[in-house]
């Protein structure tokens, strides 16, 4: 018994030493670490790296290698979107930190600008959050040979709008709701999302009563909210990630605007702390979290396992967009590297395109031309989104139906104003 124990300990020591000595595979995270998407991604990623390294690392043709994470703040989500600074950081993380894989940057403007740089250095890029503009994967598809190293492992605004259409269509069938006012942050992805949603819903017979863009730093949304009220909107379609959108929700509740806020990406409202921060004024706000796993649900057997591991490590539920995709990034890289057996970028591109892995937010597969993760409403078939509603202090998943844990509710002042009843 003692001999067996000694052998096990020696082998473990050798294994650990081998991993410790093995050249690490560097994941370079170039993202805005000051916003939720950024630091949630980093937390998810670090959790995955910890799990993978403690399980032995990545098997690269028989050699076990650990992951190493290098993080640099691009500040690309600041007002004015300093793209040039983000690109400098990206270049530094590649040249100085020796990154083998790149995560980020977040803002669409920066992510699009980064495609060229990534292509020059031939680094596999995984966009785990942000870069929601459809132009990202559109650009890859149009110039495949040049931009093939970039992959998006998260949703994008066009598909998020389709999910929103589906949920809103459901509200229309059930309750006769069909009047919408759009308020978006004045950034590329939000403008695109707001425009696409407006066009699509108009075709389905909805009335789009207004469209307003607010820049980062706005401290008063009264004009837009009062316009929505005067126009008798029933849905307030919101898109953006600036912290000031919490003021919008507070004012919406204070003014008792009889329209349901639908945040098809509403950055501050994603966090578990948002309820406390708004002193409960977030109640009834609907939020699209983009990927399952960013709030607890049973999308796949891995989803709750991830949520619990995250809560154990960080003392909070997954915090919002970027968490589950940040977590999945190292696993997707590991899967591709082990199948390719090499870190050669062209071989990795082929391996990534053949990814077929059931992860935290469903089956991970990529469109071979655009490298966009394939979305589905069924987690068995593709990557599943999550839309939740704040109800009684909890983030209750209400969409897609396959993973929903509750139904959409309306604020009492809205029910009274519109005399809402199920059809």
């Amino acid at each position: 018994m003692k001999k067996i124990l000694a052998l096990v300990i020696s082998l473990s020591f050798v294994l650990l030493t081998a991993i410790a000595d093995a050249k690490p595979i560097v994941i370079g995270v170039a993202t805005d670490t000051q916003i939720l998407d950024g630091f949630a991604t980093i937390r998810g990623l670090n959790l995955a790296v910890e799990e993978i390294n403690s399980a032995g690392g990545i098997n690269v043709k028989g050699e076990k290698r650990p992951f190493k994470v290098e993080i640099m703040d691009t500040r690309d989500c600041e007002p004015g979107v300093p793209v040039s600074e983000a690109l400098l950081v990206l270049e530094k993380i590649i040249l100085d930190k020796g990154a083998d894989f790149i995560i980020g940057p977040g803002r669409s403007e920066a992510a699009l600008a980064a495609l060229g740089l990534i292509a020059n250095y031939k680094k596999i890029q995984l966009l785990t959050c942000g870069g929601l503009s459809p132009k990202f994967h559109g650009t890859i598809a149009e110039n495949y040979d040049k931009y093939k190293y970039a992959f998006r492992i998260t949703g994008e605004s066009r598909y998020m709008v389709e999910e929103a259409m589906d949920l809103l269509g459901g509200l229309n069938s059930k309750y006769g709701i069909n009047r919408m006012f759009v308020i978006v942050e004045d950034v590329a992805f939000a403008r695109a999302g707001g425009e696409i949603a407006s066009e699509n819903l108009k075709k389905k017979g909805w009335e789009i009563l207004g469209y307003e863009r607010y820049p980062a730093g706005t401290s008063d949304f009264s004009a837009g909210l009062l316009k929505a009220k005067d126009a008798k909107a029933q849905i307030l379609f919101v898109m953006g990630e600036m912290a000031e959108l919490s003021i919008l929700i507070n004012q919406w509740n204070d003014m008792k605007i009889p329209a349901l806020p639908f945040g098809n990406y509403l950055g501050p409202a994603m966090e578990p702390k948002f309820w406390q921060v708004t002193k409960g004024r977030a109640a009834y706000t609907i939020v699209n979290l983009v990927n399952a796993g960013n709030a607890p649900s049973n999308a796949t057997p891995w989803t709750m396992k991830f949520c619990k591991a995250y809560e154990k490590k960080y003392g909070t539920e997954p915090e919002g967009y970027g968490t589950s995709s940040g977590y999945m990034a190292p696993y997707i890289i590991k899967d591709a590297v082990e199948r390719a057996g090499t870190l050669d970028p062209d071989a990795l591109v082929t391996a990534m395109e053949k990814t077929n892995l059931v992860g935290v937010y469903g089956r991970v597969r990529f469109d071979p031309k655009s490298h966009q993760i394939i979305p589905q409403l069924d987690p068995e078939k593709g990557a599943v989104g999550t839309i939740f509603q704040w109800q009684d202090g909890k983030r209750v998943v209400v969409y897609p139906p396959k993973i929903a844990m509750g139904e959409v509710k309306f604020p009492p002042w809205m029910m009274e104003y519109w005399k809402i009843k199920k059809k």
Partner: protein
Amino acid sequence: MNILVYGLINSLLLVLMALGFALAYSVSRVPNFTHGALYVLTGYLTWVFLNRLGLNYGLCIILSIASVTAMGWLIYQLTVIRVRGMPTSEIIVTFAISLAILEFLRWRGLRGATYVLPVFHLSTIHIYGVPVDAQRIIAVVITAVIVLALWLFTHYTKVGLGLRAIAQNERAALLLGIDSDRAATLALSLGSALAAIAAITILPMGNINVATGYDVLVSAIAVCICGGLGSWTGTILAGFVIGFAQMIVVYFIAPHLAMVVALAAVILILIFKPSGLFGRQKELEERV
């Protein structure tokens, strides 16, 4: 009615934000570019006292205002006094300190939407059918009280009259035995206190973040330049002009042009009346 009510509120909030900057400049002729940073610092300190030390909210407010006032005093005594009279250096020094404060707060993790201060009263009041949250009404009342208090201070107290004397004619005031440096120190400290009061009043409506520091500085400068650097009456009037102009643009044109209004106002004033609506600096050049 929406435009009138919220235009009035937003104008007064602009005035509240700008008063500290106006006071500091009018007396000391020092453009205090730390104004925005001190505003955010007040919010952060209050948050720390409240959430990390568990102190009573009222006590947190008093401690924050006192700390930031002291900081204003220190900034003048340790740095600005050495470059007083050299306008470019004054701007560089104060802006550098502002950057240091704001980036320090960013490094300390001031980010996201979760750094918030509680509102003084959670309720909604209807003014001619327009719903307004109580915190905004309280902010309007506080602004009015501050303006009145400043007026009384500068018209009926010895110290206040001394500050006015320095603001009107520094050399004549010196001849009368009023210490210019002491007055400047007091002005900067009071200006910092006013920035702190603005922060305590306005920040509970939203959240505390680093970018606000730069926004507040730009707004304060825009209001003061339009009103006339050194003129408190001008500051108040310019606050209303810019506040209502912004509200009209937001309502009838587009919300994302609100900041453009403030900056356009600065450009127009500098072209047509560089001294500002009530300012006197360049009056002679304008007449000539």
